[in-house]
Structures are given as structure tokens and as C-alpha cells.
């Protein structure tokens, strides 16, 4: 269920921007995935609601899930105005929302028990590889890094702009990358998570710096130079904040979990 849910988000969000690309000029083939994904998001949102009746979830998790879903819907709806299509900066805000706001909120919500309660064992079976991989925060940080850099090279970025289906794949990659990254970072009480966060902060900052200082237009959706610089700066500065907050959050949790370690002598 969880995987389906992840896939759902993956489908919904890109579809929305797909919509945006053809949105105003012609509804065309992008309309279909958009509608389907919107319905799916709604369905899964409802399923979580049903799940919480069977397995109640703490209020903060419940809130996290619903806020994330709300933001997801908004992220889908914004492009309907066609802004993303015409602005790298808006596009970057969309990516940032997906990777650094929606996904960590979903991971904080830990909807797994609720999904499993409704969806049953296939969910667990589908989920195992992801869970296995997410044991290593640094590995997931590397994976996410490769995904981010790959899709922000002009060739593939522009490819995704030109073809709705590539755009779909782009966003699936981003969602999956962010999913395993945040899952491993937010659920692991080790100091390595801080390293993974610092690494991510650094390399996204470097990518942002490159976009900010670039002397040539890189992306086909840039309105002008300012727009491209703004896109880079959004990735560099505000998009760094969630990682910083996550670092503080992880440290706080980590403090709490190590506080009781008074019984110190070796257990032998």
C-alpha cells in the first residue's frame, strides 16, 4: 500500500506539471494522467483516514500526513496556472516542495501501519527492498544526490520539459529518492544521519551555486537570467532550510534516546 502510495504521489505530482505544460494551450494527453493521479491521491488520503480508525495514529503524525497531502494537492494545482511551464524558479519551488517538504512530512507521519491495515501483506512484500536500502543513511543520500544531479543537468531537465512522459519519470525518481532518504534519516537515531544531511546540504548548495552563477541560459523554461538565478538561489538557500531543521530535529531526538544511558559498564 505504501509503495502504491509512493507511486501515487509520484504520478500525481508530475502529472500536474505535465498538465501545466499543455494545460492552457491544449488539454491533450496530459489531462488523463492528471485526473487519474488526483483521484488516486484522494483515494489514498481516504484510505489513510480509514486506516487511522483501525489503528489510531498520534495526532502529530495525523497532522503531518494531512498537511503533506494538502501541500501535495496544492503543488498539483499551482501548475494549472501554467506558471511552472514558464519559470525555472517556480519549477524549482515545485521540486523543493516535493523533495524537502512533502516527502519528509509523509515520512514523519509513518503511515505504514495504517496502509498495511487496509492493504494487507502485499504492501510489506513490495516495501521490503526500499526498507532494506534505507538502513544506510549515507547510501540513500548518495542515491538521492545522483538523482538530483542527473535530472538537473540541462539535457535531461529539458528532455523532461519537452516530453510529459519523461517528466513523469523525472518526478518518480525524485519522489523515490527523497522517500528513501527521508525514511532513513528520520527513522534512524544515529549520528550518521547528521553526516547524510550535511552532505545533502552541501551538494544541493553547490548545484544551486552553479545555477546562480551560470553565464548562459541552461533551461528552456527560464524566463530570463534573473529567473534562472532565482531558481538556483531557491535551491541553495531556502531549500537548505529543511535539511537544517531536520538536523536539529534529529539531534533533539537523539538526545532524548541517549539520555537514559546511565547503565554504562559493559553488559558482561
Amino acid at each position, binding site marked *: 500500500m505504501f509503495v502504491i502510495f509512493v507511486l501515487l504521489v509520484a504520478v500525481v505530482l508530475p502529472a500536474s506539471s505535465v498538465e501545466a505544460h499543455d494545460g492552457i494551450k491544449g488539454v491533450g494527453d496530459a489531462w488523463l494522467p492528471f485526473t487519474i493521479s488526483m483521484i488516486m491521491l484522494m483515494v489514498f488520503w481516504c484510505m489513510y483516514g480509514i486506516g487511522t480508525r483501525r489503528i489510531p495514529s498520534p495526532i502529530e503524525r495525523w497532522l503531518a500526513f494531512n498537511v503533506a497531502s494538502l501541500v501535495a494537492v496544492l503543488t498539483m494545482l499551482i501548475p494549472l496556472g501554467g506558471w511552472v511551464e514558464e519559470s525555472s524558479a517556480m519549477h524549482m519551488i515545485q521540486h523543493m516542495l516535493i523533495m524537502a517538504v512533502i516527502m519528509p512530512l509523509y515520512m514523519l507521519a509513518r503511515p505504514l501501519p495504517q496502509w498495511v491495515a487496509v492493504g494487507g501483506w502485499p504492501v510489506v512484500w513490495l516495501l521490503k527492498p526500499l526498507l532494506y536500502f534505507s538502513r544506510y543513511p549515507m547510501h540513500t543520500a548518495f542515491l538521492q544526490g545522483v538523482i538530483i544531479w542527473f535530472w538537473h543537468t540541462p*539535457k535531461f531537465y529539458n528532455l523532461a520539459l519537452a516530453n510529459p512522459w519523461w517528466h513523469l519519470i523525472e518526478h518518480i525518481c525524485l519522489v523515490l529518492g527523497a522517500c528513501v532518504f527521508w525514511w532513513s534519516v528520520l527513522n534512524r537515531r544515529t549520528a550518521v544521519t547528521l553526516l547524510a544531511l550535511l552532505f545533502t546540504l552541501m551538494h544541493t548548495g553547490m548545484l544551486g551555486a552553479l545555477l546562480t*552563477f*551560470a553565464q548562459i541560459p541552461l533551461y528552456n523554461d527560464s524566463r530570463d537570467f*534573473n529567473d534562472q*538565478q532565482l531558481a538556483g538561489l531557491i535551491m541553495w538557500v531556502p531549500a537548505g532550510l529543511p535539511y537544517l531543521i531536520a538536523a536539529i530535529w534529529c*539531534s533533539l531526538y537523539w538526545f532524548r534516546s541517549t539520555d537514559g*544511558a*546511565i547503565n*554504562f559498564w559493559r553488559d558482561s
Partner: protein
Amino acid sequence: MNETIRKDPAALHDDFMKVWGNPHGWRALTIVNHTTIGIRFMITGGVFFLIGGLLAMLMRTQLALPQQEIIGAELYNQLFTMHGTIMMFLFVVPMLEGLALYLIPKMIGARDLLFPRLSAFGYWCYLFGSIILLSSLLLGIAPNAGWFAYTPLSNAVYSPGPNIDFWLLGITFVEISAVSAGVELVVSILRSRSPGMSLLQMPLFCWYILIMAFMIVFGFPPLILGSILLELERAAGMPFFDIARGGDPILWQHLFWLFGHPEVYIIFLPAAGIVSTLLPVFAGRPIVAYRWVVLAVISTGFLSFGLWVHHMFAIGIPKLAQAFFSVASMLIAIPTGIQFFAWLATLWTGRPVYHIPMLWLTGFLVIFVAGGLTGVMLAVVPFNWQVHDTHFVVAHLHYVIVGGVLFPLIAGLYYWLPHFSGNMPSDKLARWGFWLTFIGFNTTFLVMHLTGLLGMPRRNYTYDANLGWDLPNSISSMGGFIFAMGIAMILLDILLHFRMGRQAGSNPWHADTLEWATSTPPQPYNFISLPDNPTRHPMWRKPDLQTSIAEGCHTLSEIDHGRRETWGSDPITGKIREIIHLPGNSWLPFFTALVLAVLCISLLLRTYDLALAAVGISSILLLRWSWINGAHPGAAPDATVVPGYPPLHSRTFDSPGLWGMIVTLLADGALFLSLLFGWFFLMIIAPHWRAPEVPPLPWLPLLITGGVLTGAAIWYKRLLQRLREGEGRRLQSQLWGIALIGFVHCFQLIGIWTNSTLTITQTAHDAVITVILMYLLFHSTLAAIMTVLQARRVAYGYVGKTVPYEVAVVEPWWLYTTSVFWLGVAAILLLPMAWGGN
């Protein structure tokens, strides 16, 4: 497990000194003990502080009156460059490192740092590097391009002499010392705390130093890389920063400030750590909001890596970027504010006593707040432009650094003086010292704000009369001399207190931390027995700790095996995991550093034969160094342990060596990341970037040789896996096999390189690729050599099923080498195709 048998302290002391004692005479050069090394660092740093101060006095004399010709323009350039360089690289950082090296083991209840030879090596590198740098001043060819050596001024066209080479090579040499101290401090703090000291029970000073050490590990590599690239450009003509050939001088600024901004916090954090240690002691209560302070320190570390651009407001970066970073710069006020309020609350709720160190802390609070406020002003871009390159900036940075670092440092010096010497300083002299310094400092630099606002540019050797700058300059110069008198007074006090100071006794300030449980002055072994330590304030809980430690009432007080030992503990909980045995005194660090100094000098003189010989000899020395390790009789003469104790670290898989390797690789990774950043930066941003039509390196051979390397790494991983499962057969032959494959890979890589059409002096494109290739080749070669070493050690019986830890130490290197190979290949071959796709 605690023993309660009391032993005779004098007899125990004698036994311990047989193992831990320091030699005298020439052999004092072999000492690796952290107390000695820390003091050497601090004394050397103090000498450089005086030299740097002297240069400042010369400059103030020159500027005291308009149109003086005491010092010419050229010498003035050298003076301000050397003043900044000495103060930043040769005084503040080594001084704070020295203090940390001295204090950390004592605070966490260990007997020494975990890599004692590395601390000695770091010291010698620092000493020789700084002597080389300073000799340029005597020869009249000192660096003269500012302490940040911006290109193009510092390139071979505009600075043809050897001046800048001194800066680049000397600083790189000193930075090796900083990074090695960083690695050592991280691993020691994480792995050698006394039984039961969990991370959250560490004294706050240790937290500050831990974060500082991590920041050194991540922050210094960009500058090391930058220096290497600039030196390659100057010596070999490889154009990294030359616009015409596809480079970009702005890249230097990025690399410099990528280091330079964290550097500000690298020096501020330990100073703040001193404040957080001293204030509670003099307020007589634990610090308020310990955890919030820790959080603030961690987030400062994070933030400092994102804000480097605000040092570059005036170089023509996009206006939008200036707006973003202007706002983002304000963020740092949050963690700094948390610490300030924690300090104020501690004072408020405690009963502060105003001993000398407190006087300096009060001075710190006042001056640093003022410096912080002018910092907020400078973060506002229009104002920044207005005062850019004027004396206002000079005044601001002195308020921050003198107020934020020097004042706490002197507070700390006075606080730990009884610990260093066993004597108390004189109250009267100390008060004179403080007030002279405080008044002198403010007279100099408060007025200098005005001079800057009146428009006087910095870095000019003189100025015309009647521009309104005459009076403030005279006042500043007078203030400078009062400042100098204050420093002289402190120096006098310190010198006199060795002779005339009254005995301090134990714990004169009623401090809470464990360093006061040693004898004063401390013995090389610190503690005869190592106490359990499940509290943040051991000395407040058990005031008799010093006696019970000296009587051997706690653990690890056996010494008949002749090993230097300390506890190896869990990085988080502080549970005991193993006994770490430490190497003893050795000539190797001294001679290795000496040979590296020869290398440095030969590079300065451009005698490359000598340089090559020095590289050869130093590698032999380093290999010898790693040979005396683990089960080698020189490292652990007797491997028996008392029943009930955990095993020796060399008999486990999780040794401090492994941690050292991983932290070193983090620094290495930061260097590689900076190199990739440079590659992308030039590719996207350099105005005249030229890339050839065909890929510079052939695809297929690279894939094949990458496959070979990956095969070797996987084999190594499996070998270690087997060893973990207790399967150690054919270990030696397998290691030989892996090494052989590694060498095959190296030769393939060399073949690819020599057959390529790279013209390193023509384009930045080819030059960067060459550097990446050199980097990869270095790592592969070292991987193969280390594996050969392992195979030989198996033959000698130093490595094997029962002594497996070194095999585990080398493994991360293989994995890292493989990763950077593929990343490098992807960056060279794949990414240009993807970027060129629009």
C-alpha cells in the same frame, strides 16, 4: 569491576613513569605525549602572536601620521599580508588546537590522544611550515597579496617572485597539521571517553571542540585544494584561474571562502567553548540549557557551510544572490543568541565571583556584541558596498576576532595557568594587563570604525593630510601601543608566575571538570587509574577524586605489561568496548615532517629532483610508521590482559584506526567534492571555457580499468567478510592477489593518461582532468601499496585471524577509491554531455 584496593601513589607513579615518562635532551624531539605537544603548540602559537603583533605595531607606526615614509609600499603590503596570515593560520588555529590537544584527554578521562604520533607530526609540520613562511619575511620576499591571496593578483603574471609560493606552500603545510589535529580530536572524543561518559555527559568544551574538529575536517580541504591548484598554475602553468585559457579567478574566491567562512567559526567555537566552561565555574552552578547550547553549536556548524557567499558581496555576483545571502546571514544570530542567553542566564541565576578570568569574559561579552552588531550592518548589502575595503571592515573583523577569540582565549589561559604550572598568577599585574588591553583595544578599533566611515581605504601604506583621517589615525596608533603594553603586562605576569606565583593546590577554582583531577602540573599519564564517570560534574560530585585516582582505586591501573593504555568506549553511550594501546615515543613524526619541509623548500626553489627524493623518503618513513603498529612488538610488547577486561583494540575489528581512516576519508571526500565543484564551476561559468570535440579520454579502456579496480575492491570486501566470520586461510596470498590487481589498474590508468591528448598548459579543461587523474592514481597506488603492506604483515604474524584490525582499516580506502573513480569518470565523460544538451 571497580577495584577498591588502595595502593601506594608514589610507587604507582614510578611504575607509570617507566612506561609514560618523557625523555630529555635531544630525545625530547621524540615525545608524542599530548600534554607536551599541546604546550608546544601553545608556546609556538604565542610566539607567532607576538610576531604578528609586532608587524601590526609597525603598520600603526607608519599610519600614525600622514605621508610618512618609514615603511614603503612594498614592505607595507608584505606586513599586512603576513599580519593576517600569521594571526589566522599560525596563531589562532594552532593555539586553539594546542589547548584542545592539551585539555581534551584530561577532560574526558583518557591518558592520551588516540594517535599520539600524529599529534607530534602535526606539531612539527606546523613548526616547519611556519618557519618557512616566516623566513620569507626576513628575506624580504614575504607574501604580499593579502591574507586571502586573491587571483589574478597572486598568479605568476602579477606576482612573478617567490612571495606567493611561500604563502601557498607554507599554508598548505600548516593546514596538514590542522587537519591531522582535527581527525585526531574527532576520533579521540568519540572513542576514548572514560567509562560511562555518554555524549550528553561530556563537558561542553568537548562538544565545541568536537564540532570544531569536524568543521576543520570539512572546511580546510577546499583551501588545500585551492592552494594546490594555484601552485600548479604558478609552477606548471596549468590554467585554473586564467580567464583567457578557460579558467576563472572567481573560482579561487569560492574555494577560499568555502574554507574561510567555516574558519570564522572554527576559531570562534573553541573560544565560545572556553566561555561555556568558565562561566558556570565562576557562577557556581551548572550551565543553563546545556542541550540547547549543544544544539546551537551543531547548527552553527551546519550554517557556516552555507554562507560563504556573503564575503563576496562586492565582486559582481547577481543582485538577487546578494539579497538571499543578506537575509540568510542573519540566521546565524539564532544559535549565537541561544548561547548568549544561556551564558547570561547562568550568570543571573548563579553567584558570580569576579576572578581574573571573569574579567576577560566580561570584556569578551561587551566587545563581541559590538562586533556582532557591526556584522549585522555589514550583512546589509548597500552598507557593505559603502564601506567595502575601508578601515570599517578592519575594525569590524578585529572586534569579532579579538573580542570573540582573543579575550576568551586569555580568560582560558588565566583559568588553566595553575593547571599548566601549578602556580597562581599575580592579581595586580593581571588586572593591569586586562585594563590596558581593554582600553588600548577599544581606543584603536572603536575609532577605526570612524576612519572607515570617513572613507579611508585599507591596505594603503599612507594617506594625504587634511582628509579628516589624521586625528583618528593618530588615536588608533596610540591605542595600539596601549594594547601592546597590556599584552606585555600579561606576558610578564605569565613569566613571573612560574617563579613567584603562589602554589595553586588542587582545583583552585572549584571547577567541575575532570582535568582538575590530575596533578598540577599534570604527569604524562594524566591519571593512574581511570574513574567511571556517569555525570557532567565529576569534581563537584566527588571532590576527593584526585586522591582516589592517584591511589589506583579505579580501573586500568595495571602497568606491568609495559603498554600505554586507555579505555576505548562506545561513541555514544561511553560503554567500555576495548583497551586501546598507544604507541610510545618515536623519531618518525619528527623526521617525516623534516623531510616534508625539505620537500616544501625544494618546491620553492623549483629543484624537482630533490623534491622527488623527498617524496620517496617521506613515503618510506610513513610506511615504517604504519609498520610499527598493532601486534608489532614495538607497539604492544605484551598482549596479555587482566581477566575480566575487554580485549586489546588490535584484537578487534572496530579500532580507533578504522575511525581515523573514516574521518580522514571525510576530509578527502570534501577535497574531491571541491575538485568536482571546480570542474563544474569552470565548465558552466568560466567565460572562455573550451572543451574539445571528442572526449578527452577513451571510453572503453576507462571502463575496463574501472572494472579491474572494482573487482579488487569487491575481493577485498569479501576477504574481510570471511575474516569476520573467523575464516583466515590463504589470507596472505589473497592480499597479494588484490594488490597485484590494484597495480594492474594503476598501470592501465597511467597508460590511458600517457596516451591521451591532454595539453595541460593550454586549457583549463585539460588541466582539471589531469588533476582528477592524478588524484585517482594517487588513491589507487596507495590502496595497492597498503595491501602489499598487509600481506607482508601477515607473513610476519602482525596481522591475522587473531589480529585482524588493520585489514578492516584499509577496507574503506578501497571502497572510497572505487567510488571516486566512478564519480570522476562520470564527471569527466558523462556530465559534459548532459550539460551540453540545450
